[in-house]
């Protein structure tokens, strides 16, 4: 007879080998992204066809730069979690899976750094 609790037996047995943190972060970022992406869509629509100077003026306002920074970081966290779920679901060999999971993270870091540096350069 095993003294393991039923919970401990199944912990870490899913495709991602981890628990509810992934699920919860996905939901928290999803809720945050509802107002943020509406703000983003409305802002971009107003800037369609605008001159570069209009775009610069828009992002030189601290509120717009700040919201854009928060939007980018939140969406990239949401993206990493979502793509990780796709990889966990469809890739079943360890080597390819680890490589793709690392690539997923690296992609988010590169895009995030590029966006934030660009915003910083516009703001300064």
């Amino acid at each position, binding site marked *: 007879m095993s003294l393991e609790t039923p919970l401990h037996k199944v912990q870490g047995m899913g495709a991602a080998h981890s628990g509810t943190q992934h699920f919860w972060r996905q*939901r928290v970022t*999803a*809720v945050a*992204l*509802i107002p943020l*992406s*509406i703000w983003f*869509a409305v802002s971009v*629509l107003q800037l*369609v*066809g*605008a001159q*570069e100077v209009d*775009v*610069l003026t828009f*992002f030189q306002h601290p509120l717009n730069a700040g919201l*854009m920074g928060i939007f*980018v970081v939140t*969406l*990239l966290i949401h*993206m990493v979690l*979502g*793509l990780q779920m*796709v990889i966990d679901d469809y890739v079943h060999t360890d080597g390819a899976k680890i490589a793709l999971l690392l690539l997923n993270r690296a*992609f988010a870091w590169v*895009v995030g750094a*590029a*966006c934030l*540096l*660009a*915003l910083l*350069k*516009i703001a300064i």
Partner: protein
Amino acid sequence: MADQKPHSRPLSPHLQIYRWPVTMATSITHRATGMALSAGTLLLAWWLIAAASGPEAFATFQNLAANPLGELVLLGFVWSLAFHLLNGIRHLAWDLGYGFDVPTANKTGILVITLSVLIAIAAFVFAYKHGGLHL
């Protein structure tokens, strides 16, 4: 056994001839639009870098965005964002226990598809009228 008619037992669904329930279609489309939007973050980064880099880089981006292929990509991006946002709200409602019964899920699925298409069209009509986009 030999007398038994073919197809008298249930056959497993074959994707090419199977009538997709709307919930199945919205489920896989949610994942597909999520992946498309991930690729779309490159467009966002490109736009911000171009604006930060000066008039020439920005003009290159504007020209590519305003050519027909660029507009098609942007339309896909706008529709994907609208769909993923609306269907994401539907998923959050399910997480809270609302609307998970089949008739309601079917109705909200059709609602999400319809609204996402309307929003994408409305965004482009607005962009053509007020922005620099040309057909």
